[in-house]
């Protein structure tokens, strides 16, 4: 999580405020389907590549139907990719056992599993981003709370999210102030750092105190009620059922290979 990426969180709120069939689905339905999707994708053997490809349809459809800009999704994936790439890139070096033959090219197990890691990364991260993109954190958390997420966790998560912008702005202002006086030197000494961050911390704590007062002033007694009256409708049931069925089918049969055989068989 680098500092440069936090402001575009707000962009994801914009995506979530759109209106589309994907947006209209109940948050619980989307959360359950996405979780199932991720588990199924991760359950493939480590060298599997082709059977994973059809799973792209899920994030692609969600993203397209809800008109989330794909470029921004890819940018986020790129920023997040180093750890998976770093760990995965040892596979081709460590596992040289031939595992597949395409034409005259022999592919080692390591390359297959590396490709598989990358594909899994794209699938799972994309699905998660698409879920948040067409649901929004508030509806998502409200949905999860109905599925049993503890209320304390849900409420303070929403506070975290709400004050992310406010406090990050304070941090950014302090940073500008420091940069203006630091005369080119970028990083601070530990002492100065301690007092700057300490100030930010005290201001954050004061903020929490004032927020709490504002909540009390409006009758807060530990429970945050919302206007949300969304219900789990038949459509949501169909969506979950359809997704689970599709994932099951694609898990049991390698659809890519089947299509390939069909085409090659027809050509032969």
């Amino acid at each position, binding site marked *: 999580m680098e500092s440069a990426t936090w402001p575009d969180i707000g962009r994801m709120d914009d995506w979530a405020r759109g209106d589309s069939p994907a947006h209209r689905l109940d948050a619980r339905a989307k959360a359950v389907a996405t979780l199932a999707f991720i588990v199924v994708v991760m359950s493939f053997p480590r060298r599997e590549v082709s059977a994973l490809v059809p799973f792209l349809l899920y994030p692609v459809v969600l993203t397209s139907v809800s008109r989330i800009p794909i470029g921004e999704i890819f940018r986020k994936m790129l920023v997040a990719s180093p750890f998976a790439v770093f760990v995965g890139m040892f596979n081709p070096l460590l596992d040289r056992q031939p595992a597949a*033959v395409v034409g005259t090219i022999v592919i080692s197990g390591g390359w297959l599993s590396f490709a598989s890691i990358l594909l899994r990364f794209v699938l799972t991260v994309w699905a998660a981003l698409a879920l948040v993109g067409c649901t929004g954190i508030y509806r998502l958390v409200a949905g999860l709370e109905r599925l049993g997420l503890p209320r304390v966790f849900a409420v303070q998560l929403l506070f975290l999210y709400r004050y992310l912008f406010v406090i990050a702005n304070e941090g950014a202002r302090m940073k500008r102030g420091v940069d203006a006086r630091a005369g080119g030197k970028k990083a601070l*000494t530990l002492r100065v750092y301690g007092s700057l961050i300490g100030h930010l911390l005290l201001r954050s704590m004061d903020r929490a105190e004032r927020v709490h007062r504002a909540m009390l002033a409006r009758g807060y007694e530990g429970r945050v009620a919302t206007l949300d009256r969304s219900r789990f409708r038949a459509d949501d049931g169909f969506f979950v059922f359809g997704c689970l069925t599709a994932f099951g089918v694609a898990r049991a049969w390698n659809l890519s290979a089947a299509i390939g055989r069909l085409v090659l068989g027809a050509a032969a």
Partner: protein
Amino acid sequence: MHMADALISPAVGGAFWAVSGGLIVYCARKIKQTLRENLVPMMGVLGAFIFAAQMLNFSIPGTGSSGHLGGGLILTILLGPHAAFIVMASVLTVQALFFADGGLLALGCNIFNLGFFPAFVAYPLIYRALAKDRRDGARASWAAVVAAVAGLELGAFFVVLQTQLSGISELPFGAFVLMMLPIHLAIGVVEGLATAAVVSFVAKARPEALPAAVYAPTPGRLRPVLIGFAVAALLFGGVASWFASTHPDGLEWSMFKVSGKEKLEAPSGGIHETLAGIQEKTAFLPNYGFKTAEGESAPEEAAAAWPAVSAGTSVSGVVGGILTLAAAGIVGLALRARAPRAVGGNG
């Protein structure tokens, strides 16, 4: 370091989801019992503070690089273990959902690695033990550094463990450990120094903001629970992974077992062989791939040693994969073209 979805098996991911989920429920209960009225908004705002604090860096003398505050340890010092664990869990959730950092399946692992160790091990067993009631001075700084290092090393070790148990990466255990631990030693020292600097500032500027000895070391009652959790995680993860490795494709194995179809094929078959079997019985079997494989002598031997290799599936997999990819792209474009403009970006 965040564990990534792509490196983790459902068994390991699920096991740690269960453990972290259990811890969240447990901590949420504990928090309900506290009398600190403003705790919930305080937790949320301090979670936001952790994000914001990462925008500012300090220079690490003699190295030319810079570091910033981590999170787990200072949150525990400010809020106590239970609240801090919940805040770390939400910080990681926001990272997973918005920054694609980590991922949903790996979230349980990440919450455990980066939340459990600082809150329930490093703080009560190391920081409190070393610093006693000091928040300021050399002693508190040392305690913070040692505690931060210990917490991060434990977390890093669990990243390795989880990766190994998942069996998706080929990295050998020893090499991975040797790679991770030194990196996290450095990160831990930096985090410890930053934590100590901030805590000591607050201790001077507004001592009452630091909850004095409110958070006693982990009470005896709690320790068995925590150890129980850890052992359960290890056992569950271990057994699940053992299962996964002896049956290279655990889920499939059980699916076939349930449907009674395993008699069709050798149970150890895996999906390639199964499909090869189906292939032999279907009309559109291309023998094109097999011929090429026979023509090559080198892979033939290797192929014999690795029964899952099936050249026929590989070729059709590649062709079909590309076609499916193309189809997915077309579907996406078509839906996009059809859908009315929905995102009211600057509205």
